[in-house]
């Protein structure tokens, strides 16, 4: 469904992504793992065009675009098919929980208020945040914020949702509630790419694991295989920390 070919990205002289080929099929849950600084966030940011790429082709079904020179309209078309869940939530501070979830539907998708509200309520129910629908982001815990952020992404019904370490800004006792929501989405068949350090989640929920190091994809394969029996020395090292 979504495919990246030959993605390269440097910051100054520092080459972060050195040629990444990456593919997501419908219904897949891909866990991206790897040491800190290996370029995982950069990968997601390039895929979502939050950072520009130096080289690379993106294919979404039959639609193809050069990532380096993507136009505004190409970017907005591709982004319509993607959701993004940030490490730091990035809920809109000036809007209540429900307004956060409705914003994309109303302002970007021009849906009428009533319909948007119904969808938002359904999404908040799904992530267990219905009770807090009229709260503002400043009044939520990290776990609650992240669940709302997930609802905000899911509400737009994107074909793939990118998660950048969704639980690493959370207190340990709050990671469970977010991972549970993500597991539920996975069970419903949501296509997800999840950068994570939660090996338990990667092993049990992901269908495929991608191990990144030093700007390359070093190893990838079925989740349990890669995590339980890594083929590459570099992967073994990382997993045995």
């Amino acid at each position: 469904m979504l495919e990246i070919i030959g993605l390269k990205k440097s910051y100054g002289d520092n080459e972060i992504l050195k040629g990444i080929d990456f593919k997501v099929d419908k219904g897949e849950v891909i866990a991206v793992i790897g040491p800190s600084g290996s370029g995982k966030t950069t990968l997601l940011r390039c895929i979502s065009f939050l950072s520009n790429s130096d080289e690379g082709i993106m294919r979404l079904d039959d639609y193809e675009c050069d990532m380096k020179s993507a136009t505004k309209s190409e970017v907005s078309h591709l982004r319509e098919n993607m959701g993004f869940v940030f490490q730091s939530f990035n809920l809109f501070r000036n809007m209540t929980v429900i307004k956060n979830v409705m914003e994309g539907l109303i302002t970007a998708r021009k849906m009428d208020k009533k319909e948007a509200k119904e969808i938002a309520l359904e999404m908040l129910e799904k992530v267990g945040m219905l009770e807090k629908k009229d709260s503002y982001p400043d009044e939520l815990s990290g776990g609650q914020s992240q669940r709302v952020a997930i609802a905000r992404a899911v509400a737009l019904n994107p074909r793939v949702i990118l998660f950048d370490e969704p639980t690493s800004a959370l207190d340990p006792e709050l990671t469970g509630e977010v991972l549970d929501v993500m597991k539920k989405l996975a069970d419903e068949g949501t296509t997800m790419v999840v950068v994570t350090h939660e090996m338990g989640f990667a092993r049990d929920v992901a269908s495929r694991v991608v191990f990144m190091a030093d700007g390359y994809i070093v190893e990838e394969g079925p989740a349990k295989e890669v995590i339980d029996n890594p083929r590459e020395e570099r992967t073994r090292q990382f997993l045995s920390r």
Partner: protein
Amino acid sequence: MSDRVFEIVTSSFMKLLIPGITVTIPLTILSFLLSLVLGLLLAVSQTANIKGLKQFSVFYIWIFRGTPLIVQLFIIFHGLPTIGIYIEAFWAAIIAFGLNLAAYNAEAIRAAILAIPEGQLEAAYMIGLSYPIAMIRIVLPQAFQIAFPSLFNNLISLLKDTSLASSITVVEMFAVVQQITGRTYEYFALYLEVAFIYLIFSTLLTFLQSYLEKKFVWKSDATKEEKRGRRRAMLG
């Protein structure tokens, strides 16, 4: 205080208050609205990094912050007529105050925009908002909250600075007190009196500021109510 002075001060109170309310305050409000709109445009043209506009904005702020307000006022009222542009004193004052304060408001708004985390904009992009829409819906409301105290400070300064309009024949409160002192020679008492009226106005503005600041926080009504309850409980 002698009976004469007392008599002059009391009889002048309404004579001062009325131009205060009918001239000083409209002058303040209209100038401020102009400065707010212009300041916002100047700030956004800098943060949006629009070529040309950004340089213009920097240049504008350099000029208007770097020269005295009264000189700007004179250029607009006395200077422009020599090139055939005549503006009535009241409007000349509004234009001068508005243009001048816009430079200061622009700086306050620009700093506030820069204080909004990049992630707010990125999250907006990822739900399909374009840059201008994301600014209007997400960034500017938050920036406005941050800039609010500075903007209000500027408003209070403006209220006092409108007294400069007397120097270009606008009959506002300070011009009126000068007329009265001209007749009565009671400088000390009358200037104290007008200072007192300015103080009342700016005090009211300060109350308005703290009232608005309290309203203008992004907390649900339940939380606000709880906070109020706690404060009441603390006061006993």
